[in-house]
């Protein structure tokens, strides 16, 4: 597909030949994740996370479909139906903990996948469309995760729904009406729970569809690689299968191992105790905290505490929070440096890690109580977040002097192998 030397699908069995003539689906799979997709030979472990994200989505869909067979989306019984799953459904506790932990695992994997794309410049030409679709997937994931968290109808579910739909009431004039329209009432209730359940079931399949587009867009230029240098010839690539299926198999095993340890031995570690209290509209929890994967954005929301230019603080916070994600859509054009990989961009590399630290600080503030100390730290961190994209990146993409790039992927690989080999007699002659 992407390179002229890609292997062609040659069905051996007559049945496969027959299918290939009628519906070339096996050919499509072969060209997508089989021997027909040439991939740079130098991908490191950070490239495992795309496949892992796909696996995490599959786990969520499979466990979610079975959970939906036992769950009742009715405000009167939703909480008890979840406990029915935990206590009376065969292996129900496993399904529910797998689904709840799985959401966190999905986000961990996707965040690493995003950070990898940022570090190695995978968002740059010619892969802008891959990046744009990725941001769409991220937004859909956030919506899906939020609605899923409402379904157990515990205290955090209810008050989380209250806070998040409250964002829309910040819109001038029509905001309150939009909020009521979204909730189907003045406060989260049965109508909200039902529509959230319906959409929570729908959106994962939308995500799956956008993932297909994401992979389609990826296969046109082919995968990026740690050097960021374009593929020059056949020696730079290996077929996806068996090379990367084998490597992804190992990565998947390690991922599942981490997943299993959390699922079986600390399933409530990533959750919040208050969500084991049934939703009570008359009692507000002491702290309303979203799930950890929303903390950085929650910190940005809370950083805006002053009315400014006749715009209320809440609207500033909501606009800033949405902008902090929507900003990512413009990233391929904000960073105009032609060099992709941070390996050859020393200044960008340094600022990437500062930005990563900034995200962690934001997350730490977002997960902490809204005391003045955390708010002030969050305000600095939020300002830095925007400064990174709007000031630092445009400047360094023009002023930075990149290190010399290798001529090809193969040259980089062989130079590394040469450095690694013990020096002395019997050294293999480098193939230069």
């Amino acid at each position, binding site marked *: 597909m992407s390179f002229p030397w890609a292997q062609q699908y040659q069905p051996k069995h007559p049945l496969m030949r027959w299918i290939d003539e009628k519906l070339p689906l096996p050919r499509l799979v072969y060209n997508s994740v089989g021997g027909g997709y040439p991939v740079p030979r130098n991908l490191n472990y950070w490239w495992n996370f795309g496949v892992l994200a796909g696996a995490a989505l599959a786990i969520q869909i499979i466990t979610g479909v079975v959970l939906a067979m036992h769950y009742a989306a009715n405000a009167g019984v939703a909480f008890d139906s979840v406990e029915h799953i935990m206590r009376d459904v065969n292996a129900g506790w496993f399904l529910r903990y797998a689904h709840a932990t799985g959401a966190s695992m999905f986000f961990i994997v996707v965040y690493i996948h995003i950070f990898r794309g940022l570090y190695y410049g995978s968002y740059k030409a010619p892969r802008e469309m891959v990046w744009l679709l990725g941001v769409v997937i991220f937004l859909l994931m956030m919506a899906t995760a939020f609605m899923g968290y409402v379904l157990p109808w515990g205290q955090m579910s209810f008050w989380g729904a209250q806070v998040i739909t409250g964002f829309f009431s910040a819109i001038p004039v029509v905001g309150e009406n939009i909020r009521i329209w979204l909730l189907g009432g003045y406060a989260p209730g049965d109508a909200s729970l039902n529509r959230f359940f319906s959409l929570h079931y729908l959106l994962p399949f939308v995500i799956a569809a956008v993932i297909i587009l994401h992979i389609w867009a990826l296969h046109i230029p082919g995968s990026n690689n740690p050097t960021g240098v374009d593929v020059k010839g056949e020696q730079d690539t290996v077929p996806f299968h068996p090379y990367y299926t084998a490597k992804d198999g*190992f990565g*998947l095993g390690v991922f599942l191992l981490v997943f*299993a340890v959390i699922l*079986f031995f600390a399933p409530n570690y990533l959750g919040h*105790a208050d969500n084991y*209290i049934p939703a009570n509209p008359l009692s507000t929890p002491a702290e309303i905290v979203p799930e950890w994967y929303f903390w950085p954005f929650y910190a940005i929301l809370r950083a805006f505490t002053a009315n400014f230019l006749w715009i209320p603080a809440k609207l500033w916070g909501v606009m*800033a929070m949405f*902008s902090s994600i929507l900003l990512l859509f413009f990233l391929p054009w904000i960073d105009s440096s032609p060099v992709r990989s941070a390996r050859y961009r020393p200044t960008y590399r340094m600022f990437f890690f500062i930005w990563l630290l900034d995200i962690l600080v934001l997350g730490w503030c977002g997960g902490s109580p809204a005391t003045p100390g955390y708010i002030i730290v969050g*305000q600095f961190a939020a300002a830095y977040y925007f400064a990174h994209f709007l000031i630092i990146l*445009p400047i360094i993409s023009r002023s930075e002097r990149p290190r010399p790039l290798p001529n090809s992927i193969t040259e980089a690989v062989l130079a590394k192998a040469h450095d690694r080999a013990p020096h002395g007699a019997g050294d293999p002659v480098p193939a230069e």
Partner: protein
Amino acid sequence: MVRTIANAVGALFVLSLLAALWGSISGVISDPPKPTAADLFHKEPKALHLASDGPFGKFDQQQLQRGFQVFKEVCSNCHSLKLVAFRDLKGIGYDDAQIKAIADQWAVEQPTTNPDTGEPATRKNLPSDHIPPPFANDIAARAANNNALPPDLSLMAKAREGGAPYIYSILTGYEPIPVALKKNFPDSLPLPGLHYNPYFPSLNIAMAQQLTTEGQVQYQDGTRPTVDQMAEDVSAFLVWAAEPKLESRHVAGFATVIFLVIFCFLAWGAYQNVWRDLEH
């Protein structure tokens, strides 16, 4: 064009943040945050080690039965345990006949309908019934408890930060009001009907001390029923009530981890084998 708009939007956000920052900092300076009574007197839960702790944890069934007895004789006078059915007590080591007897002799009967008249009625509990709540509804519960609602205990060990050690600390943590609290925070003293307990987030809890004297519950297995022992046993029982599948989870987890470790070794071998002739 895009860049100009982006910079303008960014500049506005930064200015708005500066205004907010100015507000936060001047707020802290003009009105420095003062520690509240809870900041100074609230205590973290005491250490409590249960057999079910840790990745290899298993329930101590003797202890769970003692804890169930404490629940039955003390807690269940005010607190419900709605999510637990009598049949579930098999999980703490009772057999079918014992469960039938426990259900049959339970002080509160199940609400039902008189089959002849259609009038509301009650009947003896069956093993398939959930443990009936002590009060017909929240209003009755509040009316009997100085307008405080005793929470359902089914998930208590998971629904509070601190879990079982928190429950144990609440039960054994009643203390005389410290002199410093009386002196410095007269507004934070327990109102009539509330009781000082430094392990409770607001320091003032509606429940009076319930486990007061040794021997309040007579254990069948000869364990000495000290207040500490009873509190520990009922905390252990509530861990089971909140997570009855904990043991199977640990066992399944152990098997899964062993399987995945072997899988990882094999997958690693396959990976190395496929890549053996290729520098990468």
